[in-house]
């Protein structure tokens, strides 16, 4: 396996801490940049993310042009708080309301393409306890400064908050190490160089995002990498070390469901590419057992694996983003340039 990519396309956030340089280059290239935060009941962390990004990357350094929250129907005060701190807040189901309704992170990210204006979109999870503006500027750095890079993923040393106000210094990334890495090693060894393919923080050019399908649930990160890799190759991808990310710990059962969705996405991709053939249909239920009053009872969780088509295929989007003097969707430029 050729490992030159990891040496060439791996960065550290400190390489992009000269924010004046990023501002200058952004202006020179006449880029618009959107930050999108997908949310579902994130009232504890959302204000901090918006506030720090707004202060550092909008007021002090004009790097971001907008901060957009796309919410999946929070029942807490997420939307009110986000709005109070100046983000543009949207309910996912009210975006493109004529389409069939789905709920999930991937759905929010996909719909964000329709409501954001940026040439570049930064996606950050909204549950980052140690949020710092480096999470955004470091993802943007390679995209702004290097012409060949079109998609950037984060990786971290990830401690986990374990309650009672204590921090455990190691852990996290279990699904990556137990599911994704073995799969990549088996089928796409080159992709193992992406150290944390499931990290929820990434940024890229609109032309890429609008040209790929989005699974509505947990499979979004995996499918995004596979599709970008398949369409444009590994060289348009970069990864940035963002140091530490403190997040909520998820229990093993939740990780099991996450793994199911990822496997589902992965297998569907392989099938679509004609790389594997399954004689029998795959089931779409994750079955976990509970011991209730000395009896084992199945806990069945349906994961349908719905996918949204590339946004560029949606007529409303084509209409909204049509350039007056250029009727060709601009993602084709990138496809031509990199193939």
């Amino acid at each position, binding site marked *: 396996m050729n490992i030159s990519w990891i040496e060439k396309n791996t960065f550290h956030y400190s390489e992009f801490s000269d924010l004046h340089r990023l501002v200058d280059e952004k202006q020179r290239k006449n880029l618009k940049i959107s930050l999108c935060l997908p949310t579902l009941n994130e*009232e*504890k*962390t959302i*204000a*901090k993310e918006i*506030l*720090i990004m*707004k*202060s*550092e990357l909008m*007021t*002090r350094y004009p790097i971001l042009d907008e901060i957009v929250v796309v919410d999946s129907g929070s029942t807490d*005060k997420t939307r*009110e*708080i986000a709005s*109070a*701190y*100046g983000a543009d807040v949207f309910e996912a189901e009210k975006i493109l309301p004529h389409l069939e309704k789905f709920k999930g992170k991937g759905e929010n990210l996909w719909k964000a393409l329709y409501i954001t204006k940026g040439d570049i979109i930064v996606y950050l999870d909204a549950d980052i*306890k*140690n949020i*710092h503006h480096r999470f955004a500027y470091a993802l943007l750095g390679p995209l702004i400064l290097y012409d060949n890079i079109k998609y950037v993923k984060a990786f971290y040393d990830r401690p986990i*908050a374990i309650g009672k*106000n*204590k*921090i455990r210094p190691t852990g996290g990334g279990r699904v990556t190490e137990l599911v994704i890495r073995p799969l990549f090693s088996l089928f796409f060894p080159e992709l193992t160089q992406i150290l944390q393919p499931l990290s929820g923080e990434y940024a890229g050019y609109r032309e890429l995002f609008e040209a790929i399908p989005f699974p509505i649930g947990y499979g979004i990160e995996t499918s995004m990498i596979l599709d970008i890799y398949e369409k444009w190759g590994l060289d348009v991808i970069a990864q940035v070390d963002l140091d530490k990310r*403190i997040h909520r710990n998820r229990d093993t059962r939740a990780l099991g469901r996450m793994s199911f969705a990822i496997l589902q996405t992965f297998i569907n991709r392989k099938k679509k590419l004609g790389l594997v053939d399954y004689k029998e249909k795959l089931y779409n239920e994750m079955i976990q057992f509970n011991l209730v009053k000395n009896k084992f009872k199945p806990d069945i969780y349906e994961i349908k694996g719905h996918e949204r088509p590339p946004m560029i295929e949606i007529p409303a989007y084509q209409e909204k983003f049509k350039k007056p003097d250029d009727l060709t969707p601009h993602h084709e430029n990138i496809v031509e340039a990199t193939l």
Partner: protein
Amino acid sequence: MDGYLDKLPGFVDTIRSMKETIITNIVLIGQVPAPTFNEKRRTSVFMERLAEFQVDECTTDGYRNPIGIIKGTRESKPPIFVVAHLDTIFGKDVDHYYTIQENSITGVGIMDNSVGVGVLVSLPEIFRKLNLSFESDIVLAGVIQSLGKGNLRGIRHLLKTWATPIRGAVCIESAELGRLNYYADGMIRCEVDCNISTADGWEHKFKPNAILVLNEVINQILKLRLPQKPRSRVIIGKISGGYKHGTIAYDATLGFEIQSNSDKMVKSIFNSIKDIIEGTSHEYEVDLKLKTLSNIHAAKLTFNHPLVKKTVAVMKKLDLTPVSGPSESELSILLSRNIPAVTLGITHGDNYHQPNATVEIEPIFKGIAQIIGVIMAIDSGVCDEHQLD
């Protein structure tokens, strides 16, 4: 001369417009753990942020107190110090991440002293936004090793080694907005360690219990007759000891402070407590060790000192009611060095030293306007040519 007083209410709105930057500074610095004697990481972040806001000089003194200097317009005027302590009572392994709601910030150390430190770092940008310049240099000092056993070492060292006279100082604390401290009691902070020798074997039936011995010490301290004038008190603040419920405690520690507005009285009470401890040690045949952790001399500005009067005027202009009391913080050291100084709080809050300490956001803007008003007062000369009592 007092024209600046009328500007203060208008400042509040401008400061409020910088809400994101001020809270970002509070959060980015406050989320870095800084237990006393381990403030290095917070010091680095403090320096980074100060450098970001382009102060004229950004450095550390010989004791590693981080300092930013905003140059004044008249070299002949001595500097004005604005001071906030960096250290907290919380350990490194405690989750320091803050939660921001619509009107509040919650997290460990937010009330002591993250808001104070965040505001200190924000001052250069706030001055710029308000278009303010000063005759004096403004020295922004985040001092280390302030609390508990730190014994105010940071500020002591900073002042001891500062080469030039200091015109006046403002100490910033997160809470409570409305506090006005202009006098410091004399204080001795002590710890008594009780150790029972285990050399005779644990099975000894009548072995003394370290906790009960310290209980006896406490009882005797409580029997002391303390005068109302000079105002004096002994605060029993900390106690720890023992291993488990069913085992006699072989060691225990008691922490207390003697406070009085008379140094002589502090000394006298200290001697009485020393006698109690020696007597108890002899009577119970145990090893009792008295350690002095901190010793501060009483010092004060009078209520009619121009700095105090002007600070009251500043607060009243902002509809704040000043509440006075003694303070055993950086203020003590400044006053003991004959530097006119006051301590002010920035906002209101709850659960002071708890992990879920919470401050209100809105009062912060008035709290900052008040700090700026006092700096302007000192810069206009209220501290010049007045000596302390």
